[in-house]
């Protein structure tokens, strides 16, 4: 097994680190990668940007040997290599930090780093070597992490560091990072970028996948854009603009910033008082939270994933029982009420996770379009559904929300993420609720659909509804909200206006300042 990449001989030093030639990959009917060509220069940070489902992860997983390409060639430093499995990729000096971490959660950092390169049949033999190497990597790159910590007890930022350490420990010269900042606070993301710059300066080649334009501009040397399985352009970062990249990604011009008028807040519709929620293990997830949401305003809850926002949302939506505290709808106490009663009181809920809570993926579109409202008289009486009526209404919503393909009889699983989300949004908003609570409205949704969904949320506000928005995307919170509450470790640690600067919010999200 090769520990370190081979030293570069002089004549290969000028060759590109990676060349992908004509890579093609299908998953059943999905053509994920279409005849992709890509060249990555040695010692550079190369960004790959594209909407969700554009095929970025697939392409990188092929380079890492996790998937096999149907066609095409991979060249490393000019030499064609067959990458049949991840072992071959590791041997060729490639390391990858996956979008969903490939860590064993109940193992220690040390065990995770060792896995696959244990240094012998018995663990005892390898351990000291791994410790020494971890120490060295920590010194060289500022990758600090306690080798004896258990993964599931580490914050996500540190877990990601372990992934990077794993790759470096196996001797990676080329490091692929797939959407690395999705789970990080702004400060953690900055830290990561500093590490990446150090790595590049020491001669490593880095491929950074993201759908965030800002990150591309901030750190990459070169950027390639993917759209619907194709590689549509490659640019020097210094010679392009955010607008051009966005247009290349989507294939048409997009509005990057939502336009909205001043809020016009009215009466308090939803209020939460001293709400505390514990999870099944008895850990306090929401800690003594109080706030109001008025008619005609959007209140955004910012925070890094896992700081209690999900539990708060679920408690308000009636899915999770609060441990203590009160929730009022128009002054009436409703804590402990079930979701159907809350719906009747005018509370609509767009859940965070459309796959697990918002939709039944095996249902046809029209069936999902009434989920939760299926007892309504409009859709039938006496326990029977009037399918004709349901489908007709589904068709209207499809037209109004531009859901594609416009077919109410299609299985929901076969819609793209953005269109699935539109099905949920249409269902909840079109019922004309008084209050709308939304979790992660655009997670895994393409830019075109994001624009549309944001517009609908603002229209809902302007129609005089109270909107509570939870999102881990700080940009989204800032561009939509009239007021911003920041959650950290289950508490609301502060309130800001939408004009608050990003740094101040970032510090609050990290629990550092209030």
């Amino acid at each position, binding site marked *: 097994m090769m520990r370190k990449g081979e030293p570069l001989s002089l004549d290969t030093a000028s060759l590109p680190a990676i060349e992908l030639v004509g890579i093609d990959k299908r*998953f059943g009917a999905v053509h994920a990668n279409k005849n992709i060509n890509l060249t990555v220069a040695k010692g550079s940070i190369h960004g790959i940007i594209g909407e969700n489902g554009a095929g970025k992860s697939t392409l990188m997983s092929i380079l*890492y040997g*996790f*998937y096999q390409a149907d066609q095409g060639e991979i060249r490393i430093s000019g030499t064609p290599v067959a990458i049949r*499995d*991840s*072992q*071959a*990729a*590791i041997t060729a000096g490639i390391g*990858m930090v*996956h979008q*969903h971490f*490939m*860590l*064993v*959660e*109940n*193992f220690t950092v040390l*065990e*995770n780093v*060792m*896995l*696959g*390169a*244990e240094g*012998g*049949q*018995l*663990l*005892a033999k390898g351990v000291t070597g791994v410790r020494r190497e971890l120490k060295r990597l920590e010194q060289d790159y500022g990758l600090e992490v306690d080798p004896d910590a258990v993964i599931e007890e580490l914050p996500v930022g540190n877990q990601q560091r372990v992934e990077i350490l*794993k790759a470096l420990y196996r001797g990676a010269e080329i490091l692929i990072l797939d959407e690395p900042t999705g789970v990080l606070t702004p400060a953690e993301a900055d830290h990561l970028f500093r590490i990446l710059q150090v790595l590049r300066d020491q001669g490593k080649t880095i491929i950074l996948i993201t759908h965030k334009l800002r990150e591309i501009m901030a750190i990459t040397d070169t950027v390639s854009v993917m759209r619907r399985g194709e590689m549509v352009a490659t640019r020097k970062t210094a010679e392009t603009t955010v607008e051009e990249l966005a247009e290349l990604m989507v294939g048409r011009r997009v509005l990057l910033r939502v336009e909205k008028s001043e809020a016009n807040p009215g009466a308090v519709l939803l209020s939460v008082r001293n709400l505390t929620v514990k999870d099944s*293990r008895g850990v306090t997830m929401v800690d003594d939270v109080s706030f109001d949401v008025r008619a005609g305003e959007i209140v955004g809850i910012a925070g890094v994933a896992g700081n209690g926002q999900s539990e708060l949302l679920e408690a308000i939506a009636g899915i999770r029982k609060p441990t203590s505290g009160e929730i009022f709808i128009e002054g009436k106490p409703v804590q402990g009420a079930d979701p159907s009663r809350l719906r009747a009181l005018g509370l609509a809920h767009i859940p965070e996770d459309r796959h697990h809570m918002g939709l039944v993926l095996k249902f046809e579109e029209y069936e999902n379009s009434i989920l939760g409202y299926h007892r309504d008289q409009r859709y039938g009486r006496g326990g029977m559904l009037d399918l004709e009526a349901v489908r007709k209404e589904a068709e209207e919503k499809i037209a109004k929300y531009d859901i594609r393909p416009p077919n109410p009889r299609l299985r929901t699983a076969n819609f793209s993420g953005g269109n699935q989300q539109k099905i949920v949004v249409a269902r909840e908003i079109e019922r004309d609720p008084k209050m709308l609570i939304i979790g992660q409205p655009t997670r895994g949704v393409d830019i075109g659909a994001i624009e549309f969904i944001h517009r609908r949320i603002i229209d809902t506000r302007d129609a005089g509804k109270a909107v509570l928005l939870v999102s881990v995307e700080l940009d989204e919170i800032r561009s939509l909200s009239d007021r911003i509450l920041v959650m950290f470790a289950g508490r609301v640690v502060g309130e800001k206006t939408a004009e608050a600067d990003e740094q101040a919010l970032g510090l609050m999200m990290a629990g550092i300042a209030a």
Partner: protein
Amino acid sequence: MEYFDIFVSILGSAIRLSIPLLFTALAGLFSERAGIFDIGLEGKMLVSAFAAACVAYLTANPWLGLLAGIGVSIVFSLVHGFASITNRGNQIVSGVALNFVAAGLTVVLAQAWFGQGGRTPQVPGEGRFAPIILPGADAMRDVPVIGPLYANVISGNNILTYIAFLMVPLSWWVLYRTRFGLRLRAAGENPGAVDTAGISVTWLRYRALIVTGFLAGFAGTYLAIAQSAAFINNMSAGKGYIALAALIFAKWKPVPVMFACLLFGFLDAFANFMQGKSLPWIGEVPVQIFQALPYILTCVLLAGFIGVARPPKAGGVPYTKER
């Protein structure tokens, strides 16, 4: 002193009754920690009991019987692997199916070969694993307290019993101190991590199943030619399922597995002892109640009295990369 004698005798039989559970639960430990649920332990026990009895009867050699038991059990394990690893079938369905195959096949073959109503002929004495009297057991017998314990509980067991208890630290060592064990546990938690580290998940899980077959082979052999002297129709009698319960009860850890099996063995021995005896104040209690005790205990324990039993995270799910 009378109570003490009773206690010692119950303890002795508890050990004998817990051995097949211990082998089987350790067998299950290896496959489940690797991410393959194995409801088919029961069937493996049954086929290996049958194979061991047949070969021991024919050759009058218990070791050849053991070899046959292990071999057949590994074959069953590999079939389970073929269905659930290679073809990504449902692990529970595959396991249940193998249990039915085992129950049917053993009886049919026994009837066809020996014509004794689905059992094998009596295995001659030299074809069985006989009790081993440890040195000094007879001399110690009269020493108070430790004497009877040594003579009747520690000594006087057959070799498989001692092997079973040796398997406990050995399993622990393999799981926690070797490369194979590290990878195996990782495969049960997040096979993606194993795969991206450049290790074949398929081959790893097959090897885990081979270990499972190996250990379950001991269990069946013990039933047929150590505890009894023949194969009898359905002689495993649900022990494979009890072993699974012990495994869960012990939260998939080797040393607790041993204690769980001893506890279940003890309850079983106690039930046997209570047969036909009457309790003060209550009178004679139907023996069925005592026989049901291990099962009731299992239900109660599994219902949450042992705290959260966190199974291997990837358990029961075939490993696929393409959705």
